[in-house]
């Protein structure tokens, strides 16, 4: 079972929070963040990053179900 990570570049401001929090999952490519890999092993740090994104640009999905950002 893997999770799928998406970053909406239309809302990403490139704050760098996600790349700072989880450099193994996110990197900052000039102005925007991008996932290092779209498919990841489930890990809380991905949810932390989705929660903390200042613009909620990160979505983490388990199949069809959105698991991050958490409610």
């Amino acid at each position, binding site marked *: 079972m893997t999770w799928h990570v998406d970053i909406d570049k239309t809302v990403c*401001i*490139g*704050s*760098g*929070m996600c790349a*700072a*929090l989880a450099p193994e999952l996110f990197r*900052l490519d000039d*102005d925007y963040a991008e996932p290092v890999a779209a498919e990841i092993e489930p890990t809380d740090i991905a949810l*932390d990053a989705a*929660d*903390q*994104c*200042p*613009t*909620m640009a990160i979505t983490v999905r388990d199949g069809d179900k959105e698991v991050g*950002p*958490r*409610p």
Partner: protein
Amino acid sequence: MTATYPFNETGSLDLDDAYREAQQTPGMIRVQLPYGEPAWLATRYADARLVLGDQRFSRAAAGDRDEPRMQAGRLTGGILSMDPPGHTRLRTLVAKAFTVRRVEEMRPRVREIAAELVAAMVRKGAPADLVDLFALPLPVAVICELLGVPVADRPKFRVWSDNALSTSRLTADEFLASREEMRDYMRGLISSHREQPADDLMSALIDARDSADRLSELELVDLCAGILVAGHETTASQIPNFLVTLFDHPDALARLRAEPELIPGAVEELLRFVPLGAGAGFPRYATEDVRVGDVVVRAGEPVVVAIGAANRDALRFTDADTLQVDRPPTQHLGFGHGVHHCLGAALARVELQEALRVLLADLPNLHLAGDIEWKRDLIVRGPVTMPVGW
């Protein structure tokens, strides 16, 4: 040549011309702050973003150095003096309370407090001091409820908060003494929350310490104190700063009154346009040689970042010195960038948006009704008092 810094006058919200010159000078310039060793000053957007975002620059390294600073005293050991992973551990604990989703749930309450404050101000009659009756009590009420601090203690913690941000009022010893008083106050609150937990951030942090040992007792104390200060001072300054700026731009003000749906975008533009800081602080130390534009910052050298100048960099923003309330979204640096990006950014946005919304809707003829008295010796700029009528 080393320039004497800070550049900005404290009695206005202008961006000093010295920043323009610095932006037109190749590379970065050398500056001497009131205290500490000389530093590089980043004034261009690209340089600012690199220094704030690149992990080859360290905040923790400042701990062993006479760091360039605006104040005689030094804030050491707090979350702003840490690098990942220690920083990440603390930040993740508090970040849960400040996520966009959590903060959006607070929006109706923020709006309600803002409306109550305006109604009370109107009952009291014009002219009224917008700072004392609205700009300060709004963020104070919100952060007190969120953290679990009695709002009635505002006179007490206002003194400590001003002391923490003061550039001239205190000697280094007085600065530390004031911090100890604030810590003692926080220890008292933490102790009563331990006996009687509540549904607030302080109780959540106490639980993270006591049941999971995820932070030390001093980290807990300093985190709560830091959230209380950071959670109100800047917003309390920016509410009147934004109004002063809008009074200077009557067309923009009229447009926001007519089209309040523009307010969220206007808040972003005001965050970009208004240089809040009197100067710059929190130097980043290069941990290895790093090229920043035309300059190689050598390992061990500090850089301070002038966010207000970077936000008005003509290389980055079209008509950078023009306030455009309908400007398309920008990646402004008003909340900083990188690991120390403002923890409370989402909350500040909601407070600033709701403050403007309520003031403009409920007081259609809001105007200045006297001279503004400006803060003169704080690291942030803004009115101490701002008489208004309506």
